[in-house]
């Protein structure tokens, strides 16, 4: 029997973590200023125009973007792990991030060669392609699975892994066709980054991620049933096909939006749910909201690290999450047991 924290304490701790990390993210940077600093300056009657610009046009949108992306990726990881009954299921292992990246690259190359307008009726084509490719990935997974009498979670996972590999060679192909001077930008994007300016990306993330995440949270009770026994879940009135379709489509939508804005950021969907589960247990009514909050805080923290590592400029955030996530993953494998998993 694992020792667990109470529901109230878990939510409180995750919320406190978010507040601290967001405050730190706003206060720490090349310029020593934060909300408190700004307030002091304002009361002293000094000009706060520059400071306000840095705070509200650079640091705040960047922090919000990191938070939304991390929260969404962690929540999708949680849901996929239960849905595929596998501790390794993440937006990554299902090929979603790869497919989204492939879509982004395809759009970039087509735009460069004048075969695709930058945007169609206001919808930026890069984002549209990222989402469409991610959705195609999920539909293909479902199509392959539904060709079989019973779409077992193992089939879904293997299909996703295979499609991810195909998407990666698709990325290579678009790189081969891309203009050489374009490659630097493209590769930089592939490393993931929340170094955004202004609120347009934040708005896209908020509109794309928040409603879908809330919808995904309502599936918690069904995911509990599904993780225990698929057949018992069906016997208790869970519509299995609808649950699979709902979670996969919501997951691909959330991932597609995030990937198109900040690039493929890996391991968040793996590190966060597994860590949170060790504290909350495997009940999704608690695990999912706490993972959501912790995922947001985790990516903000990674972004802070990316900004503060003492090298020229800053390190892409995708490299940071992978540097943290990779060893963590190996540790899970070596320990031979995932917290709160029976495998």
């Amino acid at each position, binding site marked *: 029997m694992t020792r667990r924290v109470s529901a109230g304490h878990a939510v409180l701790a995750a919320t406190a973590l978010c507040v601290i990390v967001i405050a730190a993210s706003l206060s720490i940077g090349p310029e020593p200023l934060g909300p408190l600093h700004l307030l002091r300056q304002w009361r002293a009657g000094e000009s706060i125009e520059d400071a306000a610009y840095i705070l509200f046009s650079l640091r705040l949108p960047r922090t919000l973007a990191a938070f939304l992306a991390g929260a969404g990726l962690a929540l999708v990881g949680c849901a996929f792990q239960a849905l595929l009954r596998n501790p390794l299921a993440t937006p990554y292992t299902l090929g979603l991030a790869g497919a989204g990246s492939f879509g982004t690259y395809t759009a970039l190359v087509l735009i460069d060669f004048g075969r695709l307008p930058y945007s169609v009726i206001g919808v930026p084509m890069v984002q549209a392609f990222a989402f469409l490719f991610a959705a195609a990935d999920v539909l293909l997974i479902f199509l392959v699975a539904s060709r079989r*009498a019973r779409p077992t979670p193992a089939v879904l996972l293997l299909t996703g892994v295979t499609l991810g590999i195909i998407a990666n060679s698709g990325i290579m192909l678009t790189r081969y066709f891309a203009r050489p001077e374009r490659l630097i930008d493209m590769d930089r994007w592939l490393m993931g980054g929340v170094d955004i300016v202004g609120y347009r990306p934040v708005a896209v993330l908020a509109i794309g991620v928040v409603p879908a995440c809330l919808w995904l949270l309502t599936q918690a009770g069904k995911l509990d049933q599904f993780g225990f*026994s698929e057949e*018992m879940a069906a*016997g208790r*009135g*869970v519509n299995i096909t609808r649950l699979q379709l709902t979670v996969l489509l919501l997951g691909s939508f959330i991932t597609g939006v995030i990937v198109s804005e900040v690039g493929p950021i890996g391991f968040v969907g793996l590190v966060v749910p597994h860590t949170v589960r060790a504290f909350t247990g495997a009940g999704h009514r608690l695990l999912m909201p706490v993972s959501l909050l912790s995922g947001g805080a985790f990516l903000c923290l990674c972004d802070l690290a990316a900004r503060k590592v003492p090298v020229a400029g800053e390190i892409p955030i995708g490299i940071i999450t992978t540097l943290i996530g990779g060893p963590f993953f190996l540790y899970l494998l070596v320990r031979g047991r995932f917290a709160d998993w*029976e495998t």
Partner: protein
Amino acid sequence: MNRCLAAESVAFAYEPGAPVLRDVAATVRGGAVAGIVGPNGSGKSTLLRLLCGLLEPGSGRVTLDGRPLASFRPRERARSLAFLPQGVQPVFLLSAFEVVCLGRYPHVGALAGPSSHDLEVARRCMRDTATDDIRHRSFMELSGGERQRVLLASILAQEPELLLLDEPTAALDIHHETEVFTLLARLAGDGYGVGVVTHDLNLAARFCDTMVLLSREHAVAACGAPEAVLREETLSAAYGARIRVGAHPFTGTPLVYAEPPEGAP
């Protein structure tokens, strides 16, 4: 009210041309244990899934108190009948109590967690199955017999009136399989209707009130009281083997024994 779940001349095939059940009838009534027996591959588990409403019959119909089972909303159905499949393999680490609480799903709203009433029902079901003292232990660390009792508690927590179980004694030793069947008979005494798929004809003979014997040809070979079903010629034809039937020395119920194939040493 005495519930009655009935399959009426149902047929089913997973793939066209390969019927798994032909024109089969079976009934599970409140207050009685109904055994579903037959050789491997005769369609016992499929029949149970049709009775649960998890599969739709190709022809014929399944009714609960005369109303077609397909017309029930899934959660409404789950409040009347509960299903315990074989080989439950949870992926998450759960305590026995958490497993039993999962049974409250058909009564709990989509967003709300279990209420104190739900937790009380779960505790009561654990007391009824003598699992209350192991409620804090991890489900997968329990012995086979304990695990089966916890699963029974978890389907009882659905507060159903009919229980449908697929080989609940598979992989249990003789003491624990008798324990499970004793519990099922006691539940039937309390008014539950029990439908149980089993391979153990002797246990079925001892504990079932009625039996349905499916044949290798996926049809009903016999049904009725155990003494009427467990006859040498009926069983031998259904299993395609030489089956002998005697009387149990202590209980007097039929005692079934399969002869080795002809020519075997």
